[in-house]
């Protein structure tokens, strides 16, 4: 029994159990038990993986297994993880776990909500454990579809519009992606869809690479909020319910960065080297443009969505720099951004649940009314603007140092431009903190509000501990992801 299968089996069992549930108590029991189990599993996997690596196991993929699925098309259900996937699995489990508590009181149709929620997480887990392009694509789609319903039914504001927009744009990306995957498969002439076997062949003709690299990169890039395909993100996040925002920004957007790195760059190295400059320009725009847009937003979720555009832009930016350090930074940034944004969206959801507004002009002095949530918000803000001691700092610094290692004027210039985001981020974060948390409360209605309940406190504390833990002791993560990144980099820079 391969331990990785549990990541798919547990959600399946949870789905079945949820289907049988009769009341909210049972639903909560199933959710807490399942997500705790998944969290424990991924923690165990992380520790075990690091132990194996330090014991000198050098195989690129561990826990590998493969079952033939559609033999006529060479599609297999093959699984295996390297450090990057382990890190992403850990991230996903943390977000799914805390997201469960963040949607503790979701209404109506609690059962259906959690069914879709678990299906979404199933897709995410599946995506990270497979090494087969087709299976990966299938899990990717599995994760996307529930999103439509979760936003469309349980969302707020212009939810139908946002859900439709998000789904259509991501589906458009998938179309590109499917073309890309087929192009890679046929281009390599391989008799397998396994990513690592194709990478070892490394025989896709350059002209084919030139066509399919942009397709694949954009396909995943849409999900990674690549400029100018990011506009689903502000609307989508603004309308989504709290835990869906958390899961979406925290994990689903990472699928984009992960896919770009694992498929587009790894399998099409030649084109990646030659065409990277186009995407470097686009991602640099994402980084600065997202941050600048965030300054003048007035809706808390819009601010955060644009902030995500900026931070996820940095992930793709770092990947395209193609140095060992910058790519390590990209993975760190995925982890860090996932945790930070989840924390941010959780807090915004909690504040919105009380004040019933997300307009920063209508809130003031929340620090006096709900000190716990306000302090949490300040911590999330400081983490987001890259304060040392939180995960954002180490991720950004690794990226900048790594990007600076590419020794030519173009790369240097874009790196310096991307660096300016640290100042712009400070501006929009402190602006919001100053506006809504500080000052005297003016709204009479707000003065009656209460501070966080136990489930909310638990969510916030868990995420703060993760963000701070990664920020204070980052050494172990690089042990985890170094070899995984190294393999891909070797392919890119022979």
């Amino acid at each position, binding site marked *: 029994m391969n331990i990785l299968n549990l990541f798919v089996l547990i959600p399946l069992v949870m789905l079945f159990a949820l289907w049988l549930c009769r009341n909210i108590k049972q639903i909560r029991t199933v959710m807490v038990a399942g997500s705790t189990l998944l969290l424990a599993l991924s923690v165990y996997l992380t520790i075990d993986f690091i132990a194996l690596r330090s014991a000198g196991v050098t195989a690129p993929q561990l826990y590998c297994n493969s079952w033939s699925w559609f033999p006529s098309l060479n599609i297999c259900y093959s699984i295996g993880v390297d450090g990057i996937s382990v890190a992403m699995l850990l991230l996903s489990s943390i977000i799914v776990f805390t997201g469960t508590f963040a949607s503790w009181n979701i209404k109506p149709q609690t059962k259906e909500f959690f069914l879709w929620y678990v299906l979404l997480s199933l897709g995410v887990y599946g995506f990270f454990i497979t090494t087969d392009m087709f299976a990966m694509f299938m899990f990717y789609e599995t994760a996307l579809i529930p999103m439509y319903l979760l936003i469309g039914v349980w969302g707020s504001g212009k939810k139908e519009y946002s859900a439709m927009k998000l789904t*259509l744009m991501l589906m458009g990306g998938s179309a590109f992606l499917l073309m890309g995957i087929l192009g890679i498969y046929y281009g390599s002439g391989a008799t397998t869809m396994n990513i690592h076997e194709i990478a070892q062949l490394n025989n896709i003709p350059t002209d084919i690479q030139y066509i399919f690299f942009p397709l694949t990169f954009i396909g995943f890039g849409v999900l990674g909020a690549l400029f100018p395909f990011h506009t689903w993100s502000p609307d989508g996040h603004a309308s989504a319910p709290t835990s869906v925002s958390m899961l979406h920004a925290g994990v689903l957007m990472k699928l984009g960065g992960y896919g770009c790195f694992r498929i587009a760059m790894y399998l099409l190295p030649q084109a990646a080297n030659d065409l990277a400059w186009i995407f470097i320009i686009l991602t640099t725009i994402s980084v600065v443009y997202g941050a600048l847009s965030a300054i003048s937003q007035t809706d808390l979720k819009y601010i955060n969505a644009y902030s995500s555009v900026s931070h996820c832009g940095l992930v793709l930016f770092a990947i395209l720099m193609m140095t060992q350090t910058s790519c390590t930074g990209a993975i760190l940034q995925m982890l860090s951004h996932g945790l930070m944004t989840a924390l941010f969206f959780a807090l915004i959801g909690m504040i919105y649940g009380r004040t019933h507004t997300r307009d920063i002009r209508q809130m003031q002095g929340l620090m006096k009314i709900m000190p716990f949530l306000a302090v949490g918000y300040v911590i999330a803000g400081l983490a987001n603007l890259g*304060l040392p001691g939180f995960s954002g700092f180490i991720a950004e610094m690794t990226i900048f140092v790594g990007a600076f290692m590419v020794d030519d004027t173009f790369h240097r210039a874009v790196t310096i431009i991307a*660096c300016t985001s*640290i100042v712009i981020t400070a501006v929009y974060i402190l602006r919001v903190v*100053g506006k809504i948390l500080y000052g*005297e409360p003016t709204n009479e209605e707000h003065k009656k509000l209460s501070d966080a309940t136990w489930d909310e406190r638990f969510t916030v504390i868990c995420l703060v501990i993760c963000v701070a833990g990664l920020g204070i002791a980052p*050494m172990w993560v690089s042990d985890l992801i170094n070899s995984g990144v190294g393999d891909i980099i070797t392919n890119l820079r022979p």
Partner: protein
Amino acid sequence: MEFSIFILAIPILSFLILGLCGMKMPHKAAGLLGTTAIATVAILSYIAAAIYFGAGRNDEGLFPTLIPYALQWLPLGNTLSIEMGIMLDPISIMMLIVITTVSLMVHIYSLGYMKGERGFQRYYAFLSLFTFSMLGLVVATNIFQMYVFWELVGVSSYLLIGFYYTKPAAIAASKKAFIVTRFADLFFLIGILIYGYYTETFSFTPTELLLSSAATVLPTALGLMFIGGAGKSAMFPLHIWLPDAMEGPTPVSALIHAATMVVAGVYLVARMFPLFIAYAPEVLHMIAYVGAFTALYAAIVACVQTDIKRVLAFSTISQIAFMMVALGVSLSDDPHKGGLGYMASMFHLFTHAMFKGLLFLGAGAIIHAVHSNEKSHMGGLRKYMPVTHITFLIACLAIAGIPPFAGFFSKDEILAACYNYSPAMGIFMSFVAALTAFYMFRLYYLIFWGKSHYEEELALYTAGKTTHEPHKPHEAPATMTTPLIILAIITCVAGFIPFGKFISSNGHAYDIHIDAAVATTSILLAVAGIVIATIMYAKGDSKITQAINSSMKNIINAAYHRFYMDELWLFVTKKIIFNCISRPIAWFDRHIIDGAMDMLAIVTQKLGNYVRPMQSGNVQSYSVWFLGGALIIILTLIYFA
């Protein structure tokens, strides 16, 4: 020196305890916990200093650099990594003493000053966090560790300036302080990136081989790092945050915005001094000019401010600029051959921390007594607050450069270094020193002499002209006066410390000697400044003062508004960045980019509507389509056949 880890561990533990369970503690317990923690750290620092300097010099005549702790914190590729550790050398030991001493004084003082304030425990938590960050900064083993703690110092400063978070001015000031320094840190970061890439290490002392290969880019890297330092140390034009930072509680201003954090930039330059001298002397010249200009600018502005804390803020800017100038005018690393400035700068940093801390704490006592920052609410306070008066006077004499107070000795060394650099620089800085004496005594007279605001109000009240009974100024409680007295004693004796024996630019012992010519000029100029201030302000607004004020109305007005630097910055940030860049980008995103996506959807929908009638379910129309299609195919076939 293994115990040095506790110098960092105790403040951070104190922060965590106070931050996590402070709310459940009574005020007194929280205050005592914070104060005890810092007292322990101070004692440890003194012990460390005693052991370090007591161990004596090594065979080369230098104090050895000790690194009791260094662990790899974040590996960055094959060659680079960020280390966290503790490095003890003469200047870091000196900084440990300065920080812990002033911090301890401030902790004790705050027990009285902040008594009964809402958020008392939070205040002590932040003070502990600040002390931790500042200590971490000075013991950094490499430039990146310094940057890490540099940012932490910035955020503690942000939290403390915004301590009164319901006060709009405090919120704005904290935001401004953070963003301005962050802007400067951007350059610092780029400097570090360049430095790290070309020297292949973040260490302060790369090998000669690596340095020589990086020689061409080192001036750029060091120049960028200096901009970061200029932001923290409030050099023109990045000084704009410091006067506003006075919105924080006064003891915080004493600790952070006078004695410790603002000298971080000076410390940074001093830390990198060997590289500056060897590879970037032109950057040092630039630092000297920037410093000299800032010193003059801040001194002029300080002459006309009416808020006593702002006078002190500008005086701080000016004095830090003196330290920068002293570093900038160094011509070699040998103190006998033009490298005197390094020692002078560190000496001034040390003495300035003591007397400026004293001035701010004194100002705090005054504000505590009269409940206002404005000079118009003061006057004649010497009768009511004798201890504050005497200690404040000592600090004023020290900053003015009157022997035997500490400021005389350190400033004299700076001026000697300036004269050695060029006579013009020397004369210029002497003039600024005279100005310093003038504005400090102006402040002194306005607070302690002249007509008493309280007595005037009392006369009005007894005459029945107001119903508001004035509040009688009173001397501060013992928790506040004790730190004042201790700092005053240090200010009296610190000048006699043989500073050159411990710290000099090349590490070898150096005997401080007073240059008679320089000393005489500087004393005469300081006395002149004091005399002018006495004539103008000792008896309230004299006729001469009014005459001068009206004849220089425009200049005074401009200086009062700090030569409109804040308005200029506000224009750039608010008008240009917010209104001309951010807003249009947000609009562009919502309407053009997103509009294009929506347009795509709309076009698809329209096209769908357009072709939908074809699938109407109506058999007649299907047959028309079928026949028409068949006809076209047949015609095409016939045509091509």
